[in-house]
């Protein structure tokens, strides 16, 4: 009798597990289906795609060759890489300096200024494009890398996030540094930054992705093909292709998405622990 119930329990567990796997596989398929289909069709002749027959065996790299030679997709990628990297470095730098001031410096109106900065977190950039467009036009920044970098050098969100991180630094450390005669710059550079590495990396990833995904602003402020970042570039391809050369469009999308997916895969472990450490509990 004992044996029977043990077997039964085992069978039940096995059944439960297969149900769980079934659910997981189903969900995974739903999530990655658009990727897989896009990637698959990027190898198909556009003729077949236009007929809606996806079970073609005429796989080739022709669409990729077309994307690389007929479009400026590589240039778009390069532009985005440069812009996003610069934004990332500068954003972390300026936000951390400001956060340092709010945590370790004593000056008049500090709290008032902090609340003013905090208040700007509520203001969406999307609601401010009209005057911002006028501003960058008057500054002569239109159609230039700078126009996609300068407005995003700092942010209230970044300052707030790093302030929270810097507040975790033990007061003893600062006291010891004062005794040692470390200047603020030295304490900032040698202690504060290394101490808050995880928050800095999280903010860096956030700002890089934010810049990489910019859409509306570059679309308004850049007109030259050789300056276009990648999102806007794909938009351009998609609207120019009146013949709906889907094979080439999918190849371009793959060229854009595959590098990010690889970075994501590599950074995944770190990212997860970083997010958890970011204490959204």
């Amino acid at each position, binding site marked *: 009798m004992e044996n029977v119930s043990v077997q039964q329990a085992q069978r039940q567990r096995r059944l439960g*597990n297969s149900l*769980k796997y079934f659910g*997981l596989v189903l*969900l*995974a398929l739903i*999530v*990655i289906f*658009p*990727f897989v289909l*896009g990637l698959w*069709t990027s190898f198909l002749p556009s003729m077949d795609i236009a*007929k809606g027959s*996806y079970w073609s065996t005429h796989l080739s790299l022709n669409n990729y060759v077309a994307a690389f030679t007929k479009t400026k997709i590589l240039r778009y990628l390069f532009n985005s890489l440069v812009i996003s990297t610069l934004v990332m470095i500068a954003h972390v730098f300026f936000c951390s300096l*400001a956060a*340092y001031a*709010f945590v370790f*410096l*004593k*000056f008049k109106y*500090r709290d008032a*200024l902090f609340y003013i900065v905090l208040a*700007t977190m*509520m*203001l*969406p950039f*999307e*609601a401010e*494009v*009209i*005057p911002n467009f006028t*501003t960058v036009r008057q500054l002569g920044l239109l159609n230039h890398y700078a126009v996609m970098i300068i*407005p995003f050098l*700092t942010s*209230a969100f970044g*300052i707030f996030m790093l302030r929270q991180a810097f*507040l975790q630094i033990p007061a003893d450390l600062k*006291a010891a540094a*004062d005794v*040692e*005669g470390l200047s*603020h710059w030295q304490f*900032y550079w040698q202690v504060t930054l*290394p101490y808050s590495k995880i928050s800095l990396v999280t903010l860096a990833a956030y700002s890089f992705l934010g810049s990489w*995904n910019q*859409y*509306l602003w570059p679309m308004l402020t850049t007109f030259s093909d050789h300056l276009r970042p*990648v*999102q806007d570039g794909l*938009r351009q391809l*998609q609207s120019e292709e009146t013949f709906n050369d889907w094979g080439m*469009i*999918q190849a371009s*999308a793959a060229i*854009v*998405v595959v590098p*990010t997916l690889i970075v*994501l*895969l590599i950074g995944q472990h770190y990212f*997860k622990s970083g997010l958890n450490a970011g204490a*959204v509990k």
Partner: protein
Amino acid sequence: MLESLPSTKPQQPTNHHPFTKQSTTTKVASFELRKNDKYYAWLFLGPSLLLLGVFVFYPMLRTFYLSLFLTNNFGQPTVFVGVQNYLNLLKSAPYLASLRATVTYVVGVAVLTLVLGLLLAAMANQKLRGIGFFRTIFTATMGVSVSVSAIFWLFMFNPTTGVLNQIVMFFGGQPIAWLTKPGWAMVAVIVTSVWMHLGFTFLLFFGALQSVPKSLYDAADVGGASAWYQFWHITLPMISPTMFFVGVVTLISAFKSFGLIDLMTAGGPTDATNLLVYRIYKDAFMNGNYAQASTESIILAVIIAVITLVQFKLLAKRVTY
């Protein structure tokens, strides 16, 4: 670098450290530092304050100012009209339709993202062989930008060759005019947006689920509580802060949707997906009606500010300022 700071014995000078001073000078030094704070504050805060001033504060004030005027084709204010722009907008049927469409979209995206994200996280939070593979797949959409998402889904929504209609027809249904029928166009942009948000939402929920203390479940097991009971009475309360956070972030992000609309529907058909930000863009940069676009911007800003304020209020309970 940290180790080189003798934090426990500050009195003892260490010769290898380049910034060590004799203990007799420390009082003077720290006094000087205090005095220097003001200059450092200017130096450290200056760039950020300048940039926030130019690109966040000034444009908000300017937008509000413009919303009280009529404007010419160059966006210059001409006639002061007070709140007339607001009154006109709130009486304008197209604008109200836009507002309704935005609410439909935003609520649809937030609710579906929350439910699906939680489902993915709960499924991935099991102890099974090869579960890491599924976790990786569930985060995959984090790497997909708005244009790529739009391209993937536009392809699937294609009325004649798209895979979705092929599936519909396989099951004997009539092909659906995705993107050209108002109701379906809304469904299409919501689905795409949910898919785009899913990876990030999953990651946050997964982190939250992992941080629920295991002892709580053990205790419930001993008490003989069912899995369903445990989910409702342990898991949900423990992750409710994350749910709230994710909900607000998704809500705000959906309110700002522009790229998806621009690429998939361009606000159509017949303005069915003409969401607030897209409308602002069209009014300002295509129709040259800067006053109306400014008014719409202020309304959008107020909506987002209110949501953010609620979030701050609730976050303040957990975050120490």
